[in-house]
């Protein structure tokens, strides 16, 4: 029944994350929190991180949206725990490249479940859905770095 294109978009792993998102819920003591919306479709995420000594120790998110945005955020949070801020920024850069059709990145195992989203690149209008959580992540990490720099004269 399904066309190949659709099945490349709606992979089982994506639907599974959509129905059972990981790390969904609010953190008790986040060090940074970013609220982001996609105004065209109403998708939204509140991403919370706890960053201690340059390492992401806890991640949580709340919000709602389409399967692509919610699965992408869930997969992202799975990869983040224990990552340094620099590595997390690198993850965001690599995933953004994947969404812009860079197939070389698709072989990158460090992306974990996020590789299942490769097919989104073939649906240009949906790329912004997949990037919503990562846009929030980059903003959160930049805010963290800025406040750390401010704290150490």
């Amino acid at each position, binding site marked *: 029944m399904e066309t190949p294109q659709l099945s490349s978009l709606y992979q089982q792993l994506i639907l599974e994350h959509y129905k059972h998102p990981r790390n969904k819920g609010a953190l008790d003591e986040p060090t940074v929190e970013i609220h982001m919306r996609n105004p065209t479709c*109403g998708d939204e995420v509140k991403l919370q991180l706890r960053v201690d000594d340059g390492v992401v120790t806890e991640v949580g998110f709340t919000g709602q949206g*389409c399967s692509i945005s919610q699965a992408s955020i869930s997969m992202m949070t799975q990869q983040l725990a224990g990552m340094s801020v620099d590595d997390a920024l690198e993850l965001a850069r690599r995933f953004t490249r994947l969404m812009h059709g860079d197939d070389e990145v698709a072989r990158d195992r460090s992306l974990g479940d996020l590789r299942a989203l490769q097919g989104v690149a073939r649906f240009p209008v949906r790329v912004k859905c997949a990037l919503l959580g990562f846009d929030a992540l980059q903003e959160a990490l930049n805010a963290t770095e800025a406040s750390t720099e401010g704290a150490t004269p």
Partner: protein
Amino acid sequence: MSPRALDAAAVRAEFPALHQEVHGVPLVYLDNAATTQKPVAVLDALDAYYRRDNANVHRGIHELSRRATDAYEGARAKVAAWIGAPDAAEVVFTRGTTEGLNLLAWAWGTARVSEGDEILLSVQDHHSNLVPWQLLARRTGAALRYVEIDDEGRWILDDLHELVTERTRLVAVSHVSNALGTVNPVSALIDAVRARSDALVVVDGAQAVPHLPVDVAALDCDAYAFSGHKMCGPTGIGALWARRSLLEDMEPFQGGGEMISVVEREGSTWASVPHKFEAGTPNIAGAVGLGAAVSWLAGFDRNEILAHEQALSAYAMERLDELGGIRVFGPTRLEERSGVVSFTMEGTHPHDIATILDSRGVAIRAGHHCAQLVMQRYGTPATARASFYLYNTRDDVDRLVEALGTVREIFG
């Protein structure tokens, strides 16, 4: 001349864009509330204008300028007749509904609204009929009040006596809801407003003029705005009708060529209406295209267009109900609806619905439809919306429902 019978299958033949495949399957176009496709009559009028008559209007002495001016002013007369305007000079060409409403908010609102005044809007409205007035309220210090909607997307008018007071300076509402398809009792509201205040009444007719008979004189509103591209015309052209006295009392919206009478060092005087509000070279081809769209649509009985769309809405709601797990928004009574069917599907985001439908060749809209207050009212971030026009058929609805079956299979 008796109107042409509405045979949707025959009508389709006149719309080239409907005869194509997308993603390997024939297109089913159900996004008409966003914009409609264009018939050959409109495409030919645009082509002929540019090939033969193209010139600037109102100032040339030469033959082409005369033709362009005749075509432009001829289009204005057609639009005026189409909406029951008593005088063609009361029709201002705009870029669309949004510009018409902004024109009023600036040219009328800035001078006539002040702190302590009230502006009455409806939560049912499109952002284009909310944000210009919110900006006006911010500039002037006026207060905003809202007509609420019930569970079926209909205005709640029970407390109108509290909403409309002697401080109400403006009432701005839409004739037909773009997000829910509610056909509003505009005439009854206007009568009630007139009984209580001398507020200016502005109607957003973007979703009404293309689909049902509109007579601005009979409605007794003060101004009425709509867009050409939602009624078979080109994008970038629309019209604002306003009472002549209102247009004459207002200051200009934009300054420039075409809108002046005499320009001197210290100031200028304005051209007569409607030209006072049409600064710069207008969208001449757009107006010509809109005029052609009006002529083409005028061949049909508009009551029949509405009945056709309502019948498709009824059929779609029946088939969606069979499918189960679907919530349809808007009125249950068919006579209170237009050809808009907004819905959500349990467990599936509207955005995903739209992507899967697109892969099956079915074009719908998913999102908040520029009506975030409506989405907030019903506690949903977005809906999927199928919207019909005179060229849609029951087969189109069947294709929609079949594609929704695929959504079920994937998200099931």
